[in-house]
């Protein structure tokens, strides 16, 4: 490449300003722009577009959260924290000197471990997510199985019915459960009218309501990956098993279930991961004495203005979810590769 030759400073200026110009032309903006013009043609420019956006609006924000999680809390300031990186002027005698001061506070993280409020809500979130995932699986697996066995026309209708709620407002669908579960709600009224119960059962603001709400909202995320897995199964395997004398339960346990494992994993992770960080459903349906971790983060950030603590909670949540997320991506990649073959 003869870029250096092309980028050499104009002759006249070289002498007058000397090494400064040389430096400027060798390392300054003209060289960068030339580099960009020379090398970033076509493809690279196109690649740069999503990279730039995601870098600015996804990667940098994440780094900011990480930084603030180590910051010092100062509730009266706007924003209410002191950055861990600060440019301070050291005043030693006559010599004034600037220096970068780095102060990392781990108070937010310590609090996560020592304060029962935080780790109990962390554990509670995991518990809620696990139970809801299990409920989704118990309901979603038979549904996906039935859909995959249906005739092609009814299959399309069923699939549409599964996806349809997804297009309607999630918030309003959760809201609908308030009307159903309230003390004077539809379910209690019906049960009272039939005479199964004598007085209304408290269902709203309980764990039960929370499980129902999450299962209800995330059921399609369980059914769809399961369906796309079950649909590909080779029926001849089941026929062979039945020819060889295996009963249907045994055939299911030995053939269908193991084969659908990737679908089960993908569906479970698609439910579990967002359920851990769920905020809206527990706020509307869940208990008020035991908060989930996302609600805790929200309160810490907005009500207590404890930005460093809230950021530490966010980082802890990410660490909690990073394993399931990586696992999910591996499952997904394997499925993609299998589909390509």
């Amino acid at each position, binding site marked *: 490449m003869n870029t250096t030759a092309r980028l050499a400073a104009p002759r006249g200026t070289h002498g007058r300003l000397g090494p400064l110009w040389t430096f400027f032309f060798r390392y300054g903006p003209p060289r960068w722009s030339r580099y960009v013009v020379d090398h970033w043609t076509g493809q690279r420019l*196109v690649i740069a577009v999503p990279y730039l956006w*995601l870098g*600015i609006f996804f990667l940098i924000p994440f780094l900011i959260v990480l930084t603030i999680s180590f910051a010092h809390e100062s509730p009266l300031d706007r924003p209410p924290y002191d950055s861990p990186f600060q440019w301070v002027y050291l005043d030693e005698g006559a010599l004034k000197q600037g220096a970068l001061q780095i102060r990392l506070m781990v108070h937010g993280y310590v609090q996560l471990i020592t304060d029962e409020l935080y780790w109990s809500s962390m554990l509670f979130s995991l518990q809620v997510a696990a139970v809801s995932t299990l409920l989704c699986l118990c309901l*979603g697996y038979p549904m996906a199985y039935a859909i995959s066995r249906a005739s092609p026309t009814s299959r399309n209708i069923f699939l549409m019915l599964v996806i349809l709620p997804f297009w309607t407002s999630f*918030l309003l669908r959760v809201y609908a459960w308030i009307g159903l579960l309230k003390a004077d709600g*539809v379910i209690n009224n019906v049960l009272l009218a039939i005479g199964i119960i004598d007085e209304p059962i408290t269902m709203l603001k309980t764990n039960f309501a929370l499980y129902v709400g999450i299962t209800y909202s995330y059921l399609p995320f369980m059914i769809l990956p399961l369906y796309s897995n079950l649909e590909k199964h080779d029926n001849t395997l089941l026929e062979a098993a039945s020819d060889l004398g295996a009963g249907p339960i045994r055939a299911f346990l030995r053939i269908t279930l193991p084969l659908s494992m990737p679908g089960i994993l993908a569906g479970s992770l698609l439910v579990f991961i967002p359920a851990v960080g769920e905020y809206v459903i527990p706020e509307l349906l869940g208990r008020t004495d035991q908060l989930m971790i*996302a609600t805790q983060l929200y309160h810490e950030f907005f009500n207590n203005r404890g930005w460093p603590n809230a950021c530490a909670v966010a980082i802890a949540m990410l660490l909690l*979810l990073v394993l399931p997320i990586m696992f999910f991506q591996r499952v997904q990649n394997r499925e993609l590769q299998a589909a390509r073959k």
Partner: protein
Amino acid sequence: MNAPNRTGGLFSKTMLAFGFVFLYLPIFTLIVFSFNDSRSVTVWASATTKWYGKLLQDDQILTAAWLSVRVGAMSATGAVILGTVAGLVLARFGPFRGRALLQGLTTAPLVMPEIITGLSMLLLFVSIEQLVHWLFGWQFDRGAVTITIAHITFTMAYVTVVVQSRLAGFDDSLEEAALDLGARPAKVFFRITVPLILPAILSGWLLAFTLSWDDVVVTQFVTGPGADTLPLVIFSRVRLGVSPVVNALATVMVLIVALGVILSAILMRRQEQRRKREEQMAATG
């Protein structure tokens, strides 16, 4: 099929029916009680449409809905542009340095808990505000613009996935042929690639719009004074308890979605029939 297998089928069919009741009963009750002539949403009095009248007079909801439409349309358009570019890069540009990072960056927002996305976006905007104030002395408020940027960021991931998987389904022979015939890459993209993936782009746009239209958590973080989107208004009202006006609003929204879905199903069926007919003609002719 032998008899025991049929019982297994029966079980799964029962579960299917139960599952659909579970999925649709809440929506159904929402609609029914929007016609209920009583403030308490859950006890049936008599039929009325007065809540729809109240809905039409509710300025807060109407303003919020208009803002949501604008934010949704803008962010869906932005997400489609960025997501299509990202999907194209990932599906067609082969292995380049930083591909794995880009793939990770585009799929991460899909699984990132919303509350973290919202928090980090807000902190970014606060930092930018500080920087701008320090550099130029300007003050700006968060609002529709910051909401749109945040929505583009988390919805473009969905568009990317849709476009990428659509592109992976096509081989690139058409595009290569065009390149061989001397078309410039940009022309190939607009004349061949875009028409091929148009269905994916459209469904990506609708998906992004729906996600933006429905978002509470991220919006709550990045919104500013006076910029309440529809979900924020609904959320703050619903927290106080049930309200028949919200039921009426829900009914209208469900109706719009149902109409849209039925229409698109009819269109798709018609297209498929036409394609079949053309295939038959090609086979016989």
